[in-house]
Structure formats: structure tokens, C-alpha cells
């Protein structure tokens, strides 16, 4: 069976200027396959500017790659038309970061749920539409009677974010792209939303791509993880392995910088070489080299992915003795 969504050597550069053209590579040579048969939760992690939101935009078809192709059920998404395009739009859904910004304050929250039902002609009668809304809201743990007919300002951030998930759910998507869905809600509500996402994957068979910079929640919710830095894959694999035994110096720095709510685990086990290089855009070698404590002569050439074990790979010459992994085969390492 053809995979649901497939990225083949996708690169995205943003350029500006007419005469002195400068370009900025947001994502370079990423290949990724999302299979329909086995729903999973995959994390894409990285700091700001790592290209994680660009990846979300590409997957949703909001921007087009500079080079490379994105396939939806075997068809290039830039050539999709008519019915095919509608089904792509329906099956690939998103939940965004800010639960406050996506609502129109002039409409009740019903609007957010009823528009997609109308657009995709999911219901024949009003009663049927109402049933669908009820069903979706119940699935995310909200009581429809409490929610429908209310205005966004009458609801809490956590409720709004769950309505966003419900909106995606109404459409019965195959793939949900969640871009920092919990970074703006309180810690006590985070658990509820993450639990909702997980039940979506488990009970409704939706594959979720969880985009975040928060590795603690990533660890708890996902099966596999891809760590990005300046548009390149630094490390990827089984989330347990990557978080518990990080290998790439960047991942180690990231994990060591998490403020663990644990008094016995203090910051500062890894020496921090935090200073961003001044105007360090033009690095031909490893992107992380200017900050890396283990930088070597070799690092002036870009490191390929080295396969460390069955479910972990890192793009670093420290592991140069391991077999190389072609970027196209990255998805094979990610457990589902």
C-alpha cells in the first residue's frame, strides 16, 4: 500500500532581496514516510529556527518545497486538484500553538466546528451536523452542552485547545499535525490535552506529528523522535533511546538543558557553549560545529547520518565508525 504522505529529499529555502539575493535554508534534504497502516505519534523537536514549523507548513501543503517532492497517496501534492485535493485537505489536519488566536471572537464556538462540516458536506441535516459535533466534543472529553453556543472568551485556554482538536476530529483525519499544541496552556491542563491526543491515535487510528521544543512531553507522548537543528536532522530514532541515551552533542545539550523538576538532577552536566556564532550563516560543514565542544577537523564537511543501532541514528563524525544511513531510509529506523 502506498504511504499516506511521503517527503522525498525536500529542501526549503527562503530567499529575499532582488539584487543582493540572500537565502536561508530552513530545511535541507529531509525524507520522511508516514505510513497509513500503523498509526503512531512522531515528535519533531528543535529550537526556534530549526525548521520545525516549516516542516509542518510543507506537510500541510501551505508552502511548496524549493526542491524535492511531497507525495500524498502516491501523488505529488502540488498537482492535486478537485476531489483529490479536498480529500488531502480533509485527511491532513492541524492543531496550532495559540488556542486564543484561532477563534473569531464574533462567532460562537459552534462556528469553528460547523464550517468544516458544511465545507466537506459531512452532514445532510442540521441534526446530523449537531450529532457529529457532539461526538467530536465528547471524544476530547468536553461536555457538548457546556460548550456549544458559547463564545470563545467564555472558555479557558485548555477547553479552546481541545475544541481545536475536536475540530480536526470532526473531519476524521488520517494525519494530525500538532504544532506546539500545549506550549501556551497551563501545566495542569497540558496533561488533559496530551491524553486527548494519545487517545486519538489509539482509538481513532490517527497518526500524529507532534512538533515541539519540549522534550519532556515528547518523551511521554511519542514513539519516535527527529531532532532538527538549523534545518538538518541531528539525531533520530526511538524516543526512549534518544532521550535517555542521547548521542549527538546537540541532543545532549538539549536534554541537559531541560529544567527537570527533580532536585537531584541539576543543570550543568554538559559544558554549555551557548554563544551563537556571529553571522555564522555560512557554514559548509556540520551546522552545529561552531557550538560543539567536540569539534574536529572533519566537521568542516557535512556529516552524513550514521546508524548507531537498530532504532537510532545521529549525524555526527563522532560515530563515523558506524555504517552510514542514506537520508531516504530514515523512516525505516523510526518505530511505530
Amino acid at each position, binding site marked *: 500500500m502506498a504511504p499516506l504522505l511521503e517527503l522525498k529529499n525536500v529542501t526549503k529555502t527562503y530567499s529575499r532581496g532582488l539584487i543582493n539575493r540572500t537565502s536561508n535554508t530552513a530545511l535541507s534534504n529531509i525524507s520522511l514516510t508516514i505510513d497509513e497502516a500503523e498509526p503512531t505519534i512522531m515528535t519533531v523537536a528543535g*529550537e*526556534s529556527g530549526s525548521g520545525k514549523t516549516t516542516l509542518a507548513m510543507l506537510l500541510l501543503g501551505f508552502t511548496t518545497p524549493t526542491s524535492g517532492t511531497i507525495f500524498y497517496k502516491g501523488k505529488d501534492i502540488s498537482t492535486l486538484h478537485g476531489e483529490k485535493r479536498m480529500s488531502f485537505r480533509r485527511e491532513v489536519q492541524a492543531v496550532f500553538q495559540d488556542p486564543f488566536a484561532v477563534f473569531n471572537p464574533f462567532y460562537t464556538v459552534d462556528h469553528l466546528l460547523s464550517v468544516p462540516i458544511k465545507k466537506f458536506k459531512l452532514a445532510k441535516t442540521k441534526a446530523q451536523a449537531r450529532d457529529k459535533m457532539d461526538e467530536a466534543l465528547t471524544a476530547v472529553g468536553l461536555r457538548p452542552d457546556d460548550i456549544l453556543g458559547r463564545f470563545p472568551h467564555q472558555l*479557558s*485556554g*485548555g477547553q479552546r485547545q481541545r475544541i481545536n482538536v475536536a475540530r480536526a476530529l470532526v473531519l476524521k483525519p488520517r494525519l494530525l499535525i500538532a504544532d506546539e499544541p500545549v506550549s501556551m496552556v*497551563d*501545566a*495542569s*491542563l*497540558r*496533561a*488533559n490535552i*496530551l*491524553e486527548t491526543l*494519545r487517545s486519538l491515535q489509539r482509538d481513532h487510528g490517527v497518526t500524529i506529528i507532534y512538533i515541539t*521544543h*519540549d*522534550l*519532556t*512531553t515528547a*518523551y*511521554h*507522548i511519542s514513539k519516535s523522535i527527529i531532532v532538527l537543528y538549523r534545518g538538518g536532522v541531528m539525531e533520530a530514532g526511538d524516543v*526512549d533511546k534518544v*532521550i*535517555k541515551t542521547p548521542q549527538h552533542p546537540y541532543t545532549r*545539550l*538539549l536534554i541537559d*538543558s*531541560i*529544567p*527537570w*523538576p*527533580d*532536585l537531584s538532577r*541539576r*543543570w550543568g552536566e554538559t559544558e*554549555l557553549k*551557548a554563544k*551563537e556564532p556571529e553571522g555564522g550563516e555560512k557554514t559548509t560543514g556540520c551546522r552545529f560545529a561552531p557550538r560543539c565542544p567536540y569539534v574536529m577537523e572533519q566537521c568542516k564537511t557535512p556529516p552524513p547520518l550514521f546508524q548507531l543501532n537498530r532504532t537510532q541514528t545521529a549525524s555526527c563524525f563522532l560515530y563515523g565508525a558506524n555504517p552510514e544511513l542514506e537520508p531516504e531510509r530514515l523512516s525505516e529506523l523510526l518505530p511505530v
Partner: protein
Amino acid sequence: MPPVLQVRDLQVSYYTDSGRARALDGVTLELNPGEKLGLVGESGSGKSTMALAMMRMIKPPGRIEGGQVIVGDTDLMALSEEGMRKSRLSKIAYIPQGAMNSLNPVLRIGAQMIDAIRAHNPSESRAGAQERCLSALESVDLKRGVYKMYAHELSGGMKQRVCIAISILMRPQVIIADEPTSALDVVTQRQVMETLDHIQHQLGCAIILIGHDMGLMAQFVDKVAVMYAGRLMELSSVREMFTDPKHPYAQALIRSLPSLENKGVFQGIPGLAPSLLRLPSGCAFNPRCTFVMDVCKSTVPAFLPLPPSERRVACHLYTTGDAEAMSVSTRAATPTEKV
């Protein structure tokens, strides 16, 4: 050593069309020089109101309705408006939430720093003021060149550090940082927090860190105050808070923290934070509390010390149970563990 900051029975209300919202209801705390206090709570619990009230920056429809904020030996609430203006930055400094977006985009960083100094000390020479700015920038680990730069030339973490540099220009005794790292990623967050730590050692000032990230608190502060619906629920040392939280809300908060051991277990706090307009009678936490008793629904628990430690808790579980027992005479009530 006398405390550098004393907040006594601080009361703030917002008067809205639908009634009076008591955003702060009798908050009392003390801070010693060099101490770092974390103030945690859900959104809407009054953390930011607390910071603004201490700076006397509450705007209508909000009003400070009572209480004292004493820095050193000055009661800020008794100062004239002009006196308060002079005290901001020189006695007590505030780094607002999203401070990095508050830098003026059309002025150089240096000009904005000089501005702050001039406001307090118009007679200071240009060269002297500039030297002070440069050393402030250096102490937050920024290059001197930043002085001549514009805000857009700096990264988020650097802008946040510029804001810290501005806050220390007049050597305040207390710095209030309201979620200084909420928009930054973990590595930058760690740099900013390490900068704050370093500044605190250098100046010997006290820091109040406001936030909801318990992990950050564990790494940074000495004492944690848990706030709920405008009242302090518990004030403990960070060690006590993480190993043996007393208040049921604090316990739920600690339990909801993710760790590496119990993968996939999410424990939220059931229920929603109450609206400040319609607070439940008695203890504000009673509708969500698992240990709720009859007394919780009728009487607001006082914020009492819990001997022998220095911690304070506002919960009926730790008083003898009946309403009279909470009067001043039985303050030393023995803690009864009902878990």
C-alpha cells in the same frame, strides 16, 4: 539579617461590569537578601497582579485596596507618585512578561539604557552613564557592541538579557522577573536563567521568579510560593516542596509533573480554576480538592506556619479541624497528616 522585602496583607481588586474580582486577597510574604523565591500558579491565579502591585503599577479598573510592600525600610505604598517613580529600578525592578518585545525598535539599545539612568539621575555625566551601561551589558554576558545595536539585530535570548541589564542599572534590592523565559527554547532558557543567577550573586539582591514551570523552579529558586485564586496556598523551601508538599493543590501540582520514570502517565489536576468573580465560599480550592471537609466549604483557611519548619500552609488539614481552632491562639496547631 532583616528581610529586604516584606509584603503584608496585600489586597488588589479589579472592578469589572460583572462585579468585583479579588485578584489578590491578603498576600503576605518575606524575602531575605540574596534569596530567590518562585511564585507559581495557574493563569489567572494572580501571579502577575502580585508583581504589578508590588511595583504599584496596577491600572484601573484594578485598585490596590490595602497592605504594605516594604523594601529595605521604605513602605512603597506610602510613597508619593514621584517617590515611587524614583524607587522603580533603584529599589525594586520588574522584568515584565515578554520583556524582549518591549524594546523600542527604532532606538539603539544604548539610548534606551541611558534613558533609564537619566530618569533617575539627570545630573550623571554622559560618559559615566555610558560606562555603567557597558558594564551592565558585560555582566549579563553580552558584548559591548550590543550598546550600539538595534533590537532586531539581537536574538530572543539576547534581547531578554538586555532587559535584565536594564533592570540592574540602578542596582535594585529586589528584582521581579515575570516568566522571563516563557517564549525561549530550553538552551536559551538555561542561559538566561544562569545570567540571572550570576547577577543575583553579583548584586546580592533578592529575586522573585514568576512562572508555572515547576522544573525551572527546581533548578533556580530557594523557596516556592504556590498561589491559587489570589491567595498563597503554601510557602516552602524548594526541597520541602518537591519532597513533601503539604497543601493538596501543591501535591496535585507536584504529581502532575512529567518525569522519566513513569512514561505515558499523565496526571492533570481535575476541574478548572475558579472565576475570581464567583469564588466558592470557604477555601477556593475546595471544589477540586480530594480531601475536602465540611469546614472547607464555610471557612477560608488562614495562612499559618507549620512548625517546626518555616513553611506556611493555608489548609484546614493542618489545623485541628474546627473553625475556632484557627484563631490566633492555636497557631501552633500540630500538623495532622491525613493522606
